[in-house]
């Protein structure tokens, strides 16, 4: 009995000694000692070395309700001398923008700020599922303070956000605060538009016909695709191709190239990516439909990006004739088409409808005769907050450290039916980077709220600029905003025309709209030749002059009048400045001589208003922040001389 007493009491005593030893040898002390050594090597002073205390160092962020003890080990984050030091001592790259005192660490990086051991802090662990964000998904935290529209600072997040919208994710997944928009074409009269065998092939594998399409692959069986096709096109329209009154092939070819369709559409791999690739279009659509579409695309689909060119009927007939003849799928054989049509005809309409309802096609398409069941997918409003236990890894073995919500989401993006066969989510064939961007965006969907004092919205919210009246109609009709931007709304393919009224001359604009050309020598010609009337151009210009002007430019009118721009002495001074002092010809061309970065300046006097030239020379960045132009500090005299030279440049030919 006594022996047991002795042994037990000694065991317990040893246990306590072990505990005390453990408590005084916390894992972080190793790092703190190493840091002190490193500091000595970096030339830290006596007082500085004394300041390195072997304790838990924490930042208490009362407003964020967080406690971060990361700096217990990451001791050099604020010290610029540790830039080259190994982790965990490295200097934090942008300590200036986000002070640790205010933000701490975990609000951006995730992880367990309270922990002081490596595994616990970085996670994931049993009792802290939110592991530190890997660099791939780090930008998901930016939106907490900076909002959703951070193009510059968080490109990955912004890309994810755009993708989420464009791929129509909202059609199947609810996200509070986002509107459910049907992003894909309506299928109401699809039988009038596309050929039945094309639809059958398309449903089986959309990427086969159009590799860049946003339509996902639902991995349907042949029977399923046939059933769905049968439902969408109940009556097979056998039409004689000769029924359509054709036009001239040669003339159609010329119109196609003159109108610069290639700016938006690509043909056999060459061309823009705004519209679909048209290389095989005649194996897809009926010529009658194509005729109606080119005549007025906006009547058939109000949200299309295609401008109404204003072609005459004969022009369109020629165009269609050329397209039907030229852009045909050569690999497709006639008997295969017939086989496909027969196969579809024998399919089951009822099953097709069921499948369409099951896969939630109505999330993106308008479909007649099918009930829209709303969002059939998971609610993603707060997907970033999900606990890992909610994520079903199915039968796949994933080690504990790799079991994180972002990793799950990433794999779901890459291969939606990885975790379980027979799931409904289709395969979008995302690349690695795309999957990362979407995962980053999804991880940013969180219910965590930071105090209002932390909010700093970066980037520009989409502008709601929407002009009415005659000008608005022209803008809408020709879809100018697909390429041009006005007051923050529009595309970035072509120049921003927010202050075009202060910039260009009326005569030049009229000529340009008739026969557009490329102002920058390096660019291919892209502005389409629209059938725009003179009166419409006048409307445009009068709107430009009244509304789209900049006071800073208009104010210069007085001083421009005082300039002696015709004085040959001034001009020759300007020439000297242009060629010798500032070497503008390094980037700009005059009379076909000079660099090709900036616009051709030969006839700049005809194109631009003199005020604009003066204004632009004095500060190029004021108009276009993204401009690659260096900023000089010209004197008044130099401004005058350069302007005078530019205005005279053409006459000197």
């Amino acid at each position, binding site marked *: 009995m*006594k022996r047991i*007493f002795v042994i037990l*009491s000694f065991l*317990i*005593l040893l246990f306590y*000694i072990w*505990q005390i030893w453990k408590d005084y040898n916390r894992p972080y002390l190793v790092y703190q000692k190493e840091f002190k050594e490193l500091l000595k090597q970096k030339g830290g002073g006596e007082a500085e070395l004394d300041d390195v205390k072997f304790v838990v160092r924490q930042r208490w962020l009362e407003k964020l309700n967080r406690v971060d003890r990361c700096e217990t080990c990451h001791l050099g984050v604020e010290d610029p*001398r540790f830039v080259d030091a190994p982790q965990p001592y490295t200097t934090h790259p942008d300590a200036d923008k986000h002070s640790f005192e205010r933000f701490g660490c975990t609000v951006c990086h995730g992880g367990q700020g309270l922990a002081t051991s490596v595994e616990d802090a970085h996670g994931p662990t049993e009792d802290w599922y939110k592991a530190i964000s890997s660099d791939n998904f780090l930008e998901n935290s930016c939106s907490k303070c900076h909002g959703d529209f951070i193009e510059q600072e968080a490109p990955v997040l912004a890309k994810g956000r755009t993708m989420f919208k464009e791929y129509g994710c909202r059609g199947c997944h609810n996200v509070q605060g986002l509107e459910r928009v049907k992003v894909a074409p309506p299928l109401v009269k699809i039988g009038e538009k596309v050929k039945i065998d094309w639809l059958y092939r398309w449903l089986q594998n959309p990427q086969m016909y159009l590799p860049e399409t946003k339509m996902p692959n639902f991995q349907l069986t042949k029977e399923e695709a046939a059933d769905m096709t049968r439902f969408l096109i109940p009556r097979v329209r056998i039409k004689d191709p000769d029924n359509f009154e054709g036009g001239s092939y040669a003339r159609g070819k010329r119109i196609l190239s003159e109108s610069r369709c290639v700016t938006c559409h690509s043909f056999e791999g060459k061309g823009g990516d705004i519209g679909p690739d048209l290389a095989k279009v005649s194996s897809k659509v009926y010529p009658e439909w194509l005729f109606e579409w080119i005549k007025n695309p906006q009547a058939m689909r109000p949200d299309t990006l295609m401008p109404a060119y204003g072609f005459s009927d004969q022009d369109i007939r020629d165009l269609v004739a050329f397209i039907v003849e030229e852009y045909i799928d050569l690999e497709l054989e006639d008997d295969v088409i017939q086989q496909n049509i027969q196969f579809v005809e024998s399919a089951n309409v009822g099953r097709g409808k069921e499948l369409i309802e099951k896969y939630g096609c109505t999330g993106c398409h308008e479909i007649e005769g099918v009930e829209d069941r709303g969002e059939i997918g998971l609610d993603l409003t707060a997907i970033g907050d999900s606990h890992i236990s909610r994520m079903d890894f199915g039968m796949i073995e994933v080690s504990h450290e790799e079991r994180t919500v972002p990793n799950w989401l990433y794999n779901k993006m890459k291969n939606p039916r990885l975790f379980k066969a027979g799931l409904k989510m289709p395969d979008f064939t995302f690349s690695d980077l795309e999957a990362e961007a979407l995962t980053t965006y999804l991880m940013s969907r969180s219910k965590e709220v930071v105090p209002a004092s932390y909010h700093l919205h970066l980037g520009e919210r989409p502008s709601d600029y929407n002009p009415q009246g005659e000008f608005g109609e022209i803008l809408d009709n020709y879809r100018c905003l697909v390429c041009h931007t006005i007051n923050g709304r529009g595309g970035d393919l072509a120049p921003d025309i927010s202050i075009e009224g202060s910039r260009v001359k009326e005569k030049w604009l009229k000529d340009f709209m008739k026969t557009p050309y490329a102002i920058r020598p390096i660019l291919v010609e892209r502005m389409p030749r629209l059938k725009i009337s003179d009166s419409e151009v006048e409307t445009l210009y009068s709107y430009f002059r009244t509304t789209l002007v900049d006071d800073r430019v208009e104010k210069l009118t007085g001083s421009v009048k005082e300039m002696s721009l015709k004085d040959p002495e001034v001009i020759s001074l300007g020439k000297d400045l242009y060629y010798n002092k500032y070497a503008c010809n390094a980037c700009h061309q005059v009379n076909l001589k000079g660099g090709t970065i900036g616009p051709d300046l030969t006839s700049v006097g005809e194109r631009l208003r003199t005020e604009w030239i003066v204004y632009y020379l004095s500060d190029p960045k004021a108009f276009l922040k993204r401009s690659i132009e260096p900023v000089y500090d010209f004197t008044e005299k130099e401004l005058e001389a350069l302007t005078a030279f530019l205005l005279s440049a053409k006459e000197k030919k």
Partner: protein
Amino acid sequence: MSSEHDRRDFLTYLGWFATLGTFGGISVASARYMVPNILYEPPKSYKIGKPQDYPEGVNFLPDKRIFVVNNGGNYKVISAVCTHMGCTPRWIAEKDRWECPCHGSIFNNKGVVIGGPAPKPLPWYEVTLGSDNKLFVNEDRIVPFSQVLTIAA
């Protein structure tokens, strides 16, 4: 017999020694447990940005409740908590002194009470320049008026 007896006693003593040792250890550990290692309080020493951020004259930092005095590249930091009832004194540049709006305490430009109910002068805090070129204030170290941090412009 006697040695057997001794051995047993020895074992008992040994057992009791271990038991009491454990109890002692627990007591000491519990006492240590009561001494907090981390505090949920605003830190007493902190960085306040670069010296260039503070123009000539007296600058007030509302977050930290301190004044940063820049006198031609000579930096000093003084508390902005009135020693009377804890209001924030205002710097009156024309009169070259602090005046507390609550009960009218007046401190001269050295922080010394020259009027009103305040019992003690405003304390000057130690300020140093860190390796990352930022000012570092330590409220735990109160320094005499004469101590300044001189930074070459």
